[in-house]
Each structure stands twice: as C-alpha cells, then as structure tokens.
C-alpha cells in the first residue's frame, strides 16, 4: 500500500537559515500533497497545497516542491525564525477518494 514518510523526526537549525523538510511517498504519485503546521496542544493548520503538475508553490517565506520522479516533496522555510518552531506534517490523498492521510511529522526547532 502507499506509504508517506517524513524522514526526519526532528530538525534543529540556526535562526536565519533555510529549513528543508522532506516528504517521500512510495508507489503511485498522488494528485496533490498538502503541508500543515502543528503547535503543541493544537490542531494542525494548513499551509500549502501543491498538485502533481506543479513543480513549485510559494507563500511568503514558504516554498514547496513536488518531484514525481523522485517521489518526493520538499518544504522550505527561508530566513527561519524561532516562531517557526513547530511540527510540520505532509499529507496526501492515498486512495483518490479525497481522504487525506498524514505523515508522522518533522519537529522543527529554530535556535536563536
């Protein structure tokens, strides 16, 4: 069955640097991927959606890429700030039935 993996449980970076988070999937290419941010004790908050025919999507300091050859999505935060510290989740439609399945998340810590 299709799997989605975020291959870093935790990532620590220095303030001002670019954080890059990875989301890999197996088997077939999903029609789209979504990225969410989750703070402790809170529900996930939507950040970006990228479709399989889109190579890149940007929103302010955020950038998402979608490489169907590598079966991978990369999530970048440029000029990172301590306020960016959170868990970032990628999600995809596993079955094509509009059910969103989530990866395990990457916990990002931006060090001042």
């Amino acid at each position, binding site marked *: 069955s299709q799997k989605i993996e975020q291959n870093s*449980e935790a990532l620590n970076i220095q303030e001002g640097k670019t954080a890059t988070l990875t989301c890999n999937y197996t088997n077939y290419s999903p*029609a*789209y991927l*979504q990225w969410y941010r989750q703070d402790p*004790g*809170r*529900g*996930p*908050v*939507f950040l970006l*959606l990228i479709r399989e025919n889109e190579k890149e999507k940007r929103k302010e300091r955020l950038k998402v890429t979608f490489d169907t050859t590598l079966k991978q999505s990369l999530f970048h935060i440029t000029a990172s700030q301590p306020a960016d510290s959170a868990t970032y*989740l990628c*999600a995809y*439609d596993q079955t094509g*039935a*509009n*059910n*969103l*399945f*989530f*990866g*395990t*998340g990457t916990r990002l810590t931006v060090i001042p």
Partner: protein
Amino acid sequence: EAGVVQSPRYKIIEKKQPVAFWCNPISGHNTLYWYLQNLGQGPELLIRYENEEAVDDSQLPKDRFSAERLKGVDSTLKIQPAELGDSAVYLCASSLAGGGNTGELFFGEGSRLTVL
C-alpha cells in the same frame, strides 16, 4: 468566523467507561472528518462524512467506536467501552465539499482522552 469547535478539550476516564466527543464544523462545510492522533505521530483518519453520510468509515474500529452526524452539521464520536490504548487526541476537521483535493482541512483543537 468561528473555527471548528470541539468539546471536551480534556477527558479522563477509567477503562471500560464510555466517552463521547462533540464537534461543530465551520458553517457551510459539508465534509467532516474525525482523526486520531497518538503522541509523536501524525493524525490517522477514522471516518469521513459528506453531509450526513459516512462515505468512508473503513478505519473506524466498529466494535467499540461509533459516530454520527445528524442533520449534516454537528458530529459525535463515541467510544464504548474505552480501553487503555484509546488514550490519544481526537481531532475533528471540516472542509468544503470535495475534501482535500479542493483545498485545506480546518482542524479543531482536539479532545485529549486519557484512559486509566
């Protein structure tokens, strides 16, 4: 505009007791989801509703879990009887019709269940 509202935020019960969680989605959102999230894991889908119809409940453990969405608005998720392994955060989310393909899911703050 009000977001997705869930209650209670926290619930502590003893095993074998029943528990119920309530969710009020964003007005106008036809699609409603219940997810379960264990510590350090991503949310796992339990059930998805389109209006009042459960269109996917394949991940819902039906021996002890039940859900309903009367009138296609509010929803209730029930566990009876609860087991120790049910301790988790139960998240409700809503979206416009079409689910994740058309845009974002809006999540509530979650209901944290502790089973002793």
